[in-house]
């Protein structure tokens, strides 16, 4: 409103003073002042109120005529995105950044096609895969009046921001936090991925089905690793196996001594497999040291979704190790989903990279956030939370059907089995080779001969 008035005032002024040089300078100054004021006012309106029902589709249809009289009718909604662009998930964080770009472009195109004159803008911040920075990011989003945040990535980070977002009514949509301990009803945390209670079961089934009976679970000593290991142990015991848990400290420069301790333990316990619950940097590090250990090269290896798509895993040393130990991993994936295949194709065409783990969940998180804001009708955390649940019921994307369970996690989560096989430009590549269906793992192909 303020901007409109300012523009109306300045227009006649332009006509009157355009004759002399001095006047021209004054005019330039006035214009700059008007622009600055207009921008500030517009920004203030968009961020501070961010409210007001988006009107009917006809507004979008007459964009050209509307903009002549009042430029800022297009409503801008900012959505916070906190990504692990550095730290232990940086390998996949860099790919996620591209997914965010793609998803916002698609979302904006889509809402405009439906006739909404709105624009969603991503405010992307790096959280360094650290809990403190994730909280700082969410707080800075809150200061900007942002009510919907995509991310953070890890369960430890989600746990840290939880009380803040719950009390400030900010909707968090994490595409990749999977710790079962965070499956809590009626909070402001949503996860477009199933909790690891499901994945742990798949991984336990996979290991048992492959003939393994005694495993050492080598896991991150954090929210994700501990919860995953606990659930794995429970399911593996139910199947009749034995699991010994060894936590390792995260954030170390290198894991050589941890891997040596793991080797000692595997040998002394006579275990026939290692189950690794890791992120990408630590996972790659551990695997490259394990590849040099005769003990660890002599047992089977099973891996969680964390290290999937880390480029370091495609080195010759790890590739050879993978085929020697017949390494298999699990990851949340709706295998053979045409929408996922389409996203994959577009990622390769546009950025030259294949989507990493959770890219599809991230993509859907952005889409859901946008549509939930529109459905809510008001830029308010509680309204958006209610709308999000409804939108997700009828949305189907690259990650499949996104409906949430009562705890705010993806209700229908499928899991795929992945392997590292020769091929691709780097010599080795990740391949989805199987899926989990009604209590058994079905292989679509045999990755290691």
């Amino acid at each position, binding site marked *: 409103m303020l901007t409109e008035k300012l523009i109306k005032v300045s227009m006649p002024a332009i006509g009157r003073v355009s004759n002399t040089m001095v006047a021209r300078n004054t005019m330039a100054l006035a214009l700059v002042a008007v622009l600055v004021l207009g921008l500030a006012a517009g920004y203030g309106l968009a961020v501070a109120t961010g409210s007001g029902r988006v009107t009917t589709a006809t507004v979008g249809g007459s964009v050209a005529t509307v903009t002549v009289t009042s430029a800022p009718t297009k409503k801008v909604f900012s959505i916070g995105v906190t990504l692990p*662009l*550095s*730290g*232990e998930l*940086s*390998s996949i*964080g*860099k790919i996620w950044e591209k997914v965010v770009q793609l998803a916002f472009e698609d979302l904006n195109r889509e809402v405009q096609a439906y006739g909404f004159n709105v624009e969603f803008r991503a405010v992307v911040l790096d959280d360094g895969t650290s809990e403190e920075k994730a909280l700082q990011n969410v707080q800075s989003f809150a200061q900007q009046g942002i009510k919907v945040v995509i991310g953070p990535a890890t369960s430890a980070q989600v746990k840290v921001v939880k009380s803040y977002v719950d009390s400030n009514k900010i909707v968090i949509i994490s595409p990749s936090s999977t710790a079962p301990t965070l499956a809590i009803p009626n909070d402001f945390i949503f996860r477009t991925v199933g909790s690891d209670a499901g994945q742990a079961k798949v991984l336990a089934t996979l290991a048992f089905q492959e003939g393994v009976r005694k495993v050492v679970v080598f896991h991150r*000593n954090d929210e994700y690793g501990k919860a995953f290991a606990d659930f794995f142990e429970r399911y593996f015991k139910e199947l009749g196996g034995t699991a010994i848990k*060894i*936590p*390792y*400290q995260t*954030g*170390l*420069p*290198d*894991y*050589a*001594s*941890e*891997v*040596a*301790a*793991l*080797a*000692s*333990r595997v*040998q*002394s316990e006579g275990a026939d497999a290692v189950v690794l619950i890791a992120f*990408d*940097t*630590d996972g*790659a*590090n*551990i*695997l*490259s*040291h394990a590849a*040099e*250990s005769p*003990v660890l090269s002599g047992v089977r290896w099973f891996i969680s979704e964390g290290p999937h798509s*880390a*480029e*370091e*895993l495609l*080195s010759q*040393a*790890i590739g050879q190790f993978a085929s020697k130990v017949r390494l298999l991993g699990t990851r949340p994936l709706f295998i053979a989903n045409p929408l996922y295949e389409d996203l994959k194709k577009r990622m390769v065409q546009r950025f*030259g*990279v294949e989507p990493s783990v959770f890219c599809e969940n991230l993509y859907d998180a952005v889409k859901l956030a946008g549509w939930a804001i529109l459905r809510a009708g008001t830029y308010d955390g509680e309204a958006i939370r209610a709308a999000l649940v409804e939108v997700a019921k009828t949305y189907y994307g690259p990650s499949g059907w996104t409906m949430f369970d009562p705890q705010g996690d993806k209700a229908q989560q499928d899991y795929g089995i992945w392997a590292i096989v020769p091929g691709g430009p780097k010599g080795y590549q990740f391949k989805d080779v199987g899926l989990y269906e009604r209590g058994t793992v079905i292989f679509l192909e045999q990755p290691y001969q």
Partner: protein
Amino acid sequence: MVLEYQVMINTVQYAFFYLVFSIPLTLSYRTTKVINFAHANLITYGAYTAIFLHGVAGLNIMSLATVVAFLVTGSIAVLNNVLVFTPLQRKGSPPSIVMIASMGLWIVYKYLLYIATDIANYYTSRNFMSYGRITYLDIPRGVGPSQALVAGLAIALITVVSLYVLLERTKIGRAMRAVADNPLLAEISGIPRTLVVNLTWFVCGGIVGAGGVVWTSFSGATTPEVGDSMILQVFTVSFVGGLISLLRTGVGAVLIAAVENVGIALLNTYFGVPVSFKPFLTFTTLLAILIAFPPLGAGGGLPYRFLRRGRGSD
């Protein structure tokens, strides 16, 4: 089975790294009296010199990478001194302010590296945020010890021998020791103090960078935070040397490497202590050492020469 042989190998390997990273820290501190947290960047920048040479230029020759890294990180250390530490000291800033400035440098360098990795990623579409182990052409491989062990031994030997020769057998080395003992007296007796200090920074920075190159042949995944996650251990080792004695720093390198590898493996095997207790063990050792042997060099404590007479260090 008591200990896997890999535990022993790791102990030796880490001892080499701690030696190469900590001795320059002690040497630079005792000569310049700057507690330099940007030391972490020197490790990281050394490693990333090798990574960029490999990932961008396709070169995997360690001898070349170490020379380039020596020049790069040596120059960075001199620049830090000329542009930040010296001006602050001239203004009469206390050591704590200079230390805080070094922390500022630490953060600045870290983010500069992130920018560099992003640019490199843009042009090569390789991931530099987390870089896998590099196999070098010019280091023997195949049968026997790993490349990292061979390279670690070489770099540690070269460092110790050349520093010994430099400090004990050359005029400039004696000047470096004189500045460390008593900067004022050294200056009065005609030693070009600024030159000596800058040379010390160059040598110290260079050695650390060369060590960083060797790190890329060892670590399974190097990240732009590799130096940061190691800096406290490196300081611990230097504290064992009282931030004064190079010999005791060397002993500290072996001690901390043994505690972190043999110690945790024994505790894990016999007492079931989780391996995640490793950092706890390191810093408990640090505290024990600090209490038993207070670091006389820290905080501008006793001059070097008194120490030498009393304890026969160095």
